[in-house]
């Protein structure tokens, strides 16, 4: 956990890629859930932020 937080603070690729991956997965789950339309409405925003973040952080140092 400490390594992960250090990675975030020092802008390391691994930690930030993890955050972006979680955001994308969360967005897709929100898009394909059968419970509430409101959650579906916010799904694209979450996926978009995750995807753009993934593209950016994949250029961070290891």
């Amino acid at each position, binding site marked *: 956990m400490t390594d992960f937080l250090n990675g975030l603070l020092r802008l390391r690729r691994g930690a930030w*890629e993890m955050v*972006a*991956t979680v955001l*994308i*997965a969360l*967005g*897709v789950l929100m*898009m*394909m859930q*059968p419970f509430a*339309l409101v959650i*579906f*409405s*916010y*799904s*694209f925003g979450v*996926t*978009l932020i*995750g*995807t753009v973040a*993934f*593209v950016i952080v994949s250029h961070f140092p290891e």
Partner: protein
Amino acid sequence: MTFEPRHPVADPSQKQTFRHRLSGLSDRTIAWIFVAPSIALLLAINIFPLIWTIRLSLTNFRTNRPYAPVKWVGLQNYRDVLSDVGVWHSMLATAHFLFWTLFFQVLIGFTLAYLINKKFRGNDLWTTIIVLPMMLSPAVVGNFWTFLYQPQIGLFNYFIAFFTGIDPSSFSMIGDVSLAPWAIVIVDTWMWTPFVMLICLAGLRAIPESIYEAAECDRASRWRQFWTITIPMVLPFLMLAVLFRGIENFKMFDLVVQLTGGGPGDTTQLTSINLKREAFEKWHTGYASAYAVILFVTVFGLASIYVKALNKVKDR
């Protein structure tokens, strides 16, 4: 008298200059010369339409009214798509289709590959027979499965009736709201399991026999060999098959249109079918463009994390 050639011969010094100039190019420049046509083509047929679609998604443009004034609507199309119950239902239908087709194709495909990999008589013949459905056109497959699913004359209903004892004409696979989503899953699984099987077979055949021999020497059981040698070494191939099938099934169109046309109601209306109706039946071009951009970002995001996971597995 001087002789003048009809076609002037190129000056050898000029030739040499050209050759010299060509050989003077750096490897990087030569690489760029070879790659440039591909990049130009990629920009023309992939990147330009993508940018154009993003532009259209921010307008109220309709293709059937090309001369009507186009109004800039900002993110309104995105808001409309993301608050549309029909789009939400299409996403749910796509999620059901995607999950179950991948589940069955991986399970059956890997099992078949494992069995085919064992040496037995007629091995090649069986491989050819199993691979046949994959070679057919989706339109043909959709058409003959429509006949197989017919409640009165369809062989599928008689097959089910034979094993369960229920009346074959008492149910319709493509006419029943609860059965239609499973009908398209069955057909896609039937058609594309051989593809997963072939990729898994390539993975299984790439495992060196010496590893199993070493495991035998260490008295590892068959079960242990399967979980510690076979599965980890086939995993990258399996993940590649899931990636290919996942992307293909996310945009599945032809097979389902031929089979159910998106019905009954909208139970099998996958996102691509819904998108096509918005774009080319209702002519909501701006709205459909926003819808397409949403699907693109979703697939792109999923594919990015999947490729990352694939690279991690390969590096192990």
